[in-house]
């Protein structure tokens, strides 16, 4: 490990941990000896690669990614708007906060079943990811708004800084870290809740439906291949979004 930079050491230890768990998984699968009970990592990755050339695979991917991503962005907008209203009007905060608390405490499965009564299953993952992520944005952005540096706002008042410049130079730099952490949490939650909604609602041509079918036909390698894919997309979308976010932060808050 000598001669390695701290970031290289960290990467190496992460890789070593991943290899350890993969080997353990492989060993457990071999010990059980039944692919139906626990498919090996090799057969899961192999199944994933055999799915790639299928047109239906890409259609399912597009179906779920588009709806869950849209749900995330709608939650971003609605959470931000509600937090702004709550920060400005105490009555709005008194009204919205319990509602947000109820959404947070209610099991996602209850919402999924309830929403199935109101909406067609094709829109379920969009609505559920939106519903689950909205409180995350609401709480984080509201905390950011409540922790704004009042002394800087007073300074802007004395110097009669225009609202546009206040937004860019005072509000954005202080609020962006709250948006960033909310986005990181919300993206993972959107994927978990969105796919859970699809598994229950079974919209045709979705990742959730493919997961459910794999379970019905005891296709454990395919079930785990879809799960692996969901994890990969979730991590990738989070990394991509946060990279984009950091790029915007650097441009907005440049020297």
């Amino acid at each position, binding site marked *: 490990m000598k001669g390695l930079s701290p970031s290289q050491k960290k990467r190496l230890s992460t890789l070593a941990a991943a290899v350890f768990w993969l080997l353990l998984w492989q060993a457990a699968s071999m010990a059980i000896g039944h692919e139906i009970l626990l498919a090996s990592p090799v057969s899961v990755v192999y199944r994933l690669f055999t799915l790639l050339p299928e047109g239906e695979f890409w259609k399912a991917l597009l179906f779920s990614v588009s709806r869950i991503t849209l749900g995330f962005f709608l939650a971003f907008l609605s959470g931000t708007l509600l937090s702004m209203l709550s920060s400005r009007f105490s009555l709005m905060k008194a009204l919205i906060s319990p509602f947000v608390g109820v959404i947070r405490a209610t099991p996602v499965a209850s919402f999924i079943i309830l929403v199935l009564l109101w909406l067609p299953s094709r829109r379920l993952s969009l609505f559920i990811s939106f519903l689950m992520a909205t409180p995350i944005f609401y709480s984080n952005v509201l905390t950011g708004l409540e922790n704004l540096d009042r002394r800087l706002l007073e300074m802007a*008042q004395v*110097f009669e800084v*225009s609202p546009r410049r206040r937004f860019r130079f005072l509000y954005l730099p202080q609020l962006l870290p709250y948006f960033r952490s909310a986005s990181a949490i919300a993206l993972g939650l959107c994927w978990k809740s969105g796919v859970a909604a699809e598994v229950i609602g079974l919209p045709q041509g979705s990742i959730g439906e493919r997961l459910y079918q794999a379970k019905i036909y005891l296709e454990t390698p395919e079930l785990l291949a879809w799960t692996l894919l969901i994890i990969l997309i979730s991590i990738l979308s989070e990394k991509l979004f946060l990279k984009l976010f950091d790029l915007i932060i650097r441009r907005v808050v440049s*020297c």
Partner: protein
Amino acid sequence: MIQIEGLFKSFGEKAVLQNFSCSLPAGKTTCLMGPSGCGKTTLFRILLGLETPDHGVILGLEGKRKSAVFQEDRLCETLGPVPNLQLCSPGLSRERALSLLKDLGLEDSALSPISTFSGGMKRRVALLRALSAPYDILFLDEPFQGLDKETKQLTMDYVKKHTQGKTVFFITHDPGEADELSQHLILLPSTFPAIDQ
């Protein structure tokens, strides 16, 4: 001329200003001195419109543009010094801002974020921001705190040169600073009323 008449301000049970009256002559630097806790910063905040007095009137501030150096620097830490100056002076060009920074020895740090600046460097940026903003009255609350002897002298000379003939309200604890800059002195003892000299 700014006329302050019969100003009262309390925070809960604590009376900070009681029947305070004074005048700030136009085109001159008025220095306010007094012990800690006698109400200097409260008066400063009232004049800036950040606090409302319980009673009393202030005449001559209506429609006037204000600029200020607060007791704290109140800079945007993630931004560099140039955007900090431009934030309060929308018409200020980058070249002009760089030239101002050079005047107070900050040219080498022009591209660094304020968060990396020392206390003295931040203070000089806060002063340049106040001086470069368009204003009719300049308010300074202990503007030279945190500066070493040499930088303080350079900065005081700079402030003196750039505030000639302007209306300035200046709070300090340091009699040396008051001697150097003020043309009109108000002593605010812990008991009122103020002594206008």
